[in-house]
């Protein structure tokens, strides 16, 4: 036999070191042979056989059929064999629960073994066997092991509690293991303490409000003592746990920092990063004028730099974290620019990250060095890296004004290289430099125009077209250049088409006499021959504008553009603060909150930085009062980095983007509302900011231009000059106009329309109710409702001024609430609100704000400020607001989850007098993101199985029973199952609301 001959050969080589033979491919009948060997009398043979079984298991073969035979080998005094059998058990016990019971006795016996290694092994393995019946037997031995005299057994038992909790949380609580685990924090052995901390932290994550860890100064002291003595891994567990603590005052904060700083010299990078996390967090509480604060800042830099001499994978983790730290506290590393210079042999992922940090650290002091480096990088091989380097040069120009000239000349040098992607990238950034420093560098336009033909990427083409349109009056042959693009208009990408349309309109407004034909051509291409609604709408808006009032058109299209901001690619501040609390973890690597990539409720609570000492909170309305005053400081514009490699990777499978996406200012909510985005942007003259464009600045309060408020009627030939030029236009227009009714209704309507686009079946939106009566708010009446449109939560508000004076300066702020709702941008009440006027505003909301459980759960406390006073009110939102679009669960998963959730979490409700059949109900519910996973018909009942996912990742499963046989019984029965049962009631309310309306 093959095996036999191999064994013989191996004997020749010496009996031991040839376990690789077990990996050789096998053939039919192997299982049978193994069975015989497992039941052999010879111990050696048995062991050989078990090894073969494990090898097959590793490769992915199913050897579960051998279960009884392998378990029979468990009773042995050979430790190696025992461990192998245990390994097998851990893998297959779940598929053979009944047989696994056979092993229980041995486990229980082993837990009493005189050898502590065996006791620990038994309890460790038992915890890995996820079979209910076994866990029952586990409790007694575990209790003993938690109090074992040997620390090795105790440290193993501590982890075992976490294992058991993962299988059956209730059991752990009932058996009082949590208290025993808490006691272990005071254990004399540091490793026991560390493992107990790790276990408790994990358990606490799944009970956000349990206060399980109960960190107080005494326990903190114990942890800090253990920190000095335990293994490197234990130090990490303890530091990560410490980071969750909020010191009572700045003095406590300082004393903890003092005891943590020595960890910065640890050889293990993870210990260092976790220590950095604790320090960065607690530093928030220290007064800035304190000497110690400065000392701490100085102490942080060297260890961060040292991380860069670690292995490349760790360097990558460190760099992603440094990127956050540099944004939060630029002062720490401002003198360390050189260490981020790219080395020729760095892996590409390290190079790209270093480049990012270099730009963040660039300042007037070091710009010369940085530029020299960037120029060097722009000649490298890796295309992504080169592109990023070129882009970086542009960003330097925008960031450091003094360097702009040098940057521009460097870019021109690069354009001379004629390397295609370098040229294109350079043109894209030069466009931004023009935006930032208007009327300064236009002399280079000629050089740019020379490269027109080589541009084949949409972004570069769009940038070039923008430049030509913007500076049409200085480019003699601008019309020829633009016309050349027009030939292949329909083959261009949307970005280019939109840009071309705008550019030609600009050209026309600047040189009307020569370009009438051109503008007509582009308008008809955009409105009549295109299927793209964005393009059509923008075309019609221009057409209308031009034909109605060319003077207004000029004012709108050629308006002064807002400057683009200096800091680009910044992470939104609240997200940044949250990520700082996650230093060292995956969240800090992805630059996404854990809720964006972790399933279920685990670890998705948002962490916050502690408040600085002295910022006392008033008793009445915590946070809100002071926050409102801060609202007027517009949040910095945030520009998503398109080149963000990781982001792309993540998006690959996180699609569709839901509210998990980090909050973005309102100007960016346009993703689903291109109709509006494109239109408004261009009306603002902010043409470069099309929805797909890379750079994005905040569009400051898009004030509707006067002309569009006017009824446009049918009188197209209003202005004689236009009448001539657009002579042929009206013929084609009526049909088009009908298709774009919004144009007639002014921009206000456009806004609403934009909001509605993308909603599939139409979720139920309750009518507006009065939230704040005028009586209570010095004449300001606020009514509103909530709506979810294309995945974005909106708060639709109507402000009515019932007072005698004009109201201005509106701002809004929310108190902490159960689901972290927060305004995603400033409140945009554009014009002063005169007496008796009403204005409707739609405020997009994000769900990444601070979280605090409210009573009732869906309560939202709001503060609104205007020039008169600050007003408070509270309202309740339908929880269906939080149902996300990707809430449809896979059938299998649904089944498993349903079984997995304990039945005590199930809640039953009745919906009376509902006359819907199951399909209608299902459709209606789907509109509000309640998805039907499966339907079953039993006798006269239709059962719908439905799933819902909340923005914070909590799943809810529901079963809806509808009577079909008897027309008189119109009651529906609903049972809801959820890991967080307190939500069920609100879900029921939503069902009621949706089904009845």
């Amino acid at each position, binding site marked *: 036999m093959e095996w036999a001959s191999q064994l013989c050969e191996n004997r020749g080589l010496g009996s031991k070191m040839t376990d690789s033979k077990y990996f050789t491919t096998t053939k039919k009948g192997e299982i049978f042979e193994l069975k015989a060997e497992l039941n052999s009398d010879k111990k050696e043979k048995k062991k050989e056989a078990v090894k073969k079984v494990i090898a097959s298991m590793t490769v992915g073969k199913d050897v579960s059929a051998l279960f009884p035979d392998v378990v029979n080998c468990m009773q042995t005094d050979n430790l190696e064999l025992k461990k192998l059998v245990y*390994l097998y058990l851990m893998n297959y016990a779940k598929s053979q629960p009944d047989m696994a019971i056979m092993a229980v006795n041995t486990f229980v016996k082993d837990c009493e073994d005189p050898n502590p290694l065996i006791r620990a092994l038994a309890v460790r393995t038992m915890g890995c066997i996820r079979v209910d019946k076994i866990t029952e037997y586990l409790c007694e031995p575990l209790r003993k092991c938690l109090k074992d005299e040997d620390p090795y057994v105790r440290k193993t038992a501590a982890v075992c509690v976490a294992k058991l909790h993962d299988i059956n949380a209730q059991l752990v609580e009932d058996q009082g293991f949590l208290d025993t685990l808490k006691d272990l924090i005071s254990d004399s052995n540091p490793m026991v303490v560390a493992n107990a901390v790790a276990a408790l932290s994990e358990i606490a994550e799944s009970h956000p409000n349990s206060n399980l860890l109960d960190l107080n100064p005494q326990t903190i002291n114990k942890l800090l003592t253990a920190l000095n003595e335990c293994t490197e891994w234990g130090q990490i567990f303890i530091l990560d746990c410490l980071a969750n603590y909020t010191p009572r005052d700045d003095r406590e904060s300082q004393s903890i920092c003092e005891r943590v700083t020595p960890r910065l010299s640890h050889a293990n990078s993870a210990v260092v990063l976790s220590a950095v996390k604790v320090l960065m967090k607690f530093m928030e509480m220290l007064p800035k004028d304190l000497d110690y604060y400065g000392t701490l800042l100085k102490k942080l830099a060297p260890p961060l730099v040292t991380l860069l001499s670690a292995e490349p994978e760790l360097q990558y983790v460190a760099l992603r974290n440094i990127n956050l730290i540099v944004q939060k506290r630029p002062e720490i590393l401002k003198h360390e620019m050189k260490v981020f210079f790219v080395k020729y042999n760095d892996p590409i992922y390290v190079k790209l990250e270093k480049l990012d940090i270099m730009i963040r650290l660039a300042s007037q002091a070091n710009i010369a060095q940085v530029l020299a480096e960037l120029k060097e990088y722009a000649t490298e091989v890796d295309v992504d890296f080169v592109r990023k380097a070129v882009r970086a040069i542009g960003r330097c120009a925008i960031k450091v004004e003094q360097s702009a000239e040098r940057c521009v000349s460097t870019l021109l040098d690069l354009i001379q290289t004629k390397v295609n992607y370098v040229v294109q990238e350079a043109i894209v950034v030069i466009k931004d430099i023009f935006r930032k420093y208007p009327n300064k560098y236009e002399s280079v336009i000629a050089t740019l125009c020379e490269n027109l033909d080589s541009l084949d990427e949409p972004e570069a083409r769009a940038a070039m077209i923008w430049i030509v349109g913007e500076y049409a009056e200085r480019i003699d042959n601008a019309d020829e250049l633009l016309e050349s693009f027009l030939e292949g208009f329909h083959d261009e990408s949307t970005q280019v088409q939109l840009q071309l349309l705008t550019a030609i309109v600009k050209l026309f407004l600047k040189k009307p006499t020569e370009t009438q034909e051109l503008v007509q051509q582009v308008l008809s291409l955009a409105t009549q021959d295109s299927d793209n609604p964005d393009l059509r709408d923008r075309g019609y808006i221009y057409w209308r504008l031009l034909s109605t009032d060319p003077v207004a058109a000029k004012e709108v299209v050629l308006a002064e553009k807002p400057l683009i901001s200096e800091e680009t690619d910044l992470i939104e501040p609240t997200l940044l603060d949250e990520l700082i609390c996650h230093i060292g973890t995956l969240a800090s690597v992805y630059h996404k909150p854990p809720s964006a990539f972790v399933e279920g409720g685990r670890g998705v609570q948002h962490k916050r930085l502690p408040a600085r000492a002295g910022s006392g909170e008033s008793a009445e309305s915590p946070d809100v009062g002071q926050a409102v005053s801060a609202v007027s400081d517009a949040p910095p514009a945030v520009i998503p980095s398109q080149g963000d490699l990781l982001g792309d*990777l993540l998006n690959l499978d996180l699609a569709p983007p839901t509210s998990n996406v980090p909050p973005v200012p309102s100007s960016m909510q346009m993703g689903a509302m291109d109709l509006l985005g494109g239109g408004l942007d261009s009306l603002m003259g902010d043409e470069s900011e099309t929805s797909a464009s890379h750079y994005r600045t905040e569009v400051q309060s898009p004030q509707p231009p006067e002309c569009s408020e006017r009824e446009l009627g049918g009188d197209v030939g209003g202005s004689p000059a236009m009448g001539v030029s657009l002579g042929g236009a009206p013929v084609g227009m009526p049909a088009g106009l009908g298709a774009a009714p919004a144009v007639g209704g002014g921009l206000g309507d456009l806004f609403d329309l934009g909001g509605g686009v993308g909603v599939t079946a139409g979720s139920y939106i309750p009518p507006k109710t009065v939230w704040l009566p005028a009586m209570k708010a010095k004449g300001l009446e606020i009514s509103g409702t909530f709506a979810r449109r294309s995945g974005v939560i909106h708060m639709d508000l109507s402000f009515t001024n019932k007072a005698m004076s004009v109201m201005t300066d509106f701002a809004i702020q929310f108190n902490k609430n159960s689901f972290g709702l927060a305004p995603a941008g400033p409140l945009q009440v554009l014009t002063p609100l005169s007496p008796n006027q009403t204005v409707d505003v739609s405020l997009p909301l994000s769900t990444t704000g601070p979280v605090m459980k409210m009573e009732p759960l869906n309560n939202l406390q709001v503060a609104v400020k205007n020039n008169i006073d600050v007003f408070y009110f509270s309202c309740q939102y339908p929880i269906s607001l939080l149902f996300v679009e990707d809430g449809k669960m896979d059938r299998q998963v649904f089944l498993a989850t349903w079984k997995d959730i304990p039945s005590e979490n199930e809640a039953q409700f009745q919906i009376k007098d509902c006359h819907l059949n199951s399909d209608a109900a299902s459709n209606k519910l789907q509109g509000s993101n309640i998805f039907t996973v499966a339907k079953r018909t039993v006798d006269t009942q239709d059962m719908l199985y439905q799933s819902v996912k909340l923005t914070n990742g909590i799943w809810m499963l529901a079963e809806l029973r509808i009577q079909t046989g008897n027309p008189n019984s119109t009651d529906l029965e609903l049972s809801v199952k959820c890991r967080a049962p307190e939500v069920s009631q609100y879900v029921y309310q939503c069902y009621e609301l949706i089904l009845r309306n």
Partner: protein
Amino acid sequence: MIGGLFIYNHKGEVLISRVYRDDIGRNAVDAFRVNVIHARQQVRSPVTNIARTSFFHVKRSNIWLAAVTKQNVNAAMVFEFLYKMCDVMTAYFGKISEENIKNNFVLIYELLDEILDFGYPQNSETGALKTFITQQGIKSQLQTKEEQSQITSQVTGQIGWRREGIKYRRNELFLDVLESVNLLMSPQGQVLSAHVSGRVVMKSYLSGMPECKFGMNDKIVIDKQGKGGTTDEAGKSSGKQSIAIDDCTFHQCVRLSKFDSERSISFIPPDGEYELMRYRTTKDIILPFRVIPLVREVGRTKLEVKVVIKSNFKPSLLAQKIEVRIPTPLNTSGVQVICMKGKAKYKASENAIVWKIKRMAGMKESQISAEIELLPTNDKKKWARPPISMNFEVPFAPSGLKVRYLKVFEPKLNYSDHDVIKWVRYIGRSGIYETRC
């Protein structure tokens, strides 16, 4: 925490798979193979997210180690653990290769069971592990009770890296100061960045539980002593030789709180070889070599390269294993080299001229000139001109670090500091030592 750990060969076949958490299924094994190992493109990140599962990987020769998780784990810890896992495996069976892994798969499973529990790393010091994971198939009854409790107390104890009762007839220790000096220089000879990353590696063969104290010419310590000292002269003379350390990290045996408060380095060392500390300096670095490049493009099909290297240290010292690597364009058709010293060769497969010199004393100079002939191409892309890199080894520490003392105290056994034989050696090597041309 870590949900599972997989080891693959270069083809993507699983050699080891150990799952710790219920949320990781067998399909994760395949997901990594398909999306990373078999991916067409170069690896763009050591952390990959596939269908909400995160994969951390490191590669050792052609073996892939991947840790898998679905939670927000401590990423730095996962990589540190993977490196540690490699160290442990190397300590047990040598090089990490497919052959060795297959031969030791039972051992590896045993190790994985011990050093990772429910995804939490446990004690992973080889010194401790080797006391009870032996692969000798010891029968559990054979150990005495004392032995057992000794093992467990060591594994969980405060000094997890050293066992009690070690005895040597001759107490001896070796200190190696190993430095790698890194340089990036502009073609004009301007230092763009330079730093030394150094390691102090100790081999200790000492009896009992010796308490050690290590001293070096750290500027902060010497300045402190200088202030406390009686004469200013002492402070000045020693101040000259002291060096400013930017940052240092220590093996877990060193008492960090003591270093933080007194800047003294005290510890009970592990037995045998280990890395006591790492450090980094950026000031007053002795750059052992200076490279002066001269590249001239003669027409479109010819390049003239001249490179001069100058040694910059005491004439009595000898540098060894000197190698200068001069990159050549991809379209090189032929190269003629003339060098004064050593041997130079054009290696077409590496696109470089490699110039090797066995030995070179300090304060010397040597030169190479080469004519490179190019094939005419119509490739618009310019040659990127990679930097000229250098390798060497010198018998001193480029940072200027000096070991001042290493004192050993073992109160329980009767040997004193004087009885210990101590050896110190300095080796300076090139790290990334590049000059742009």
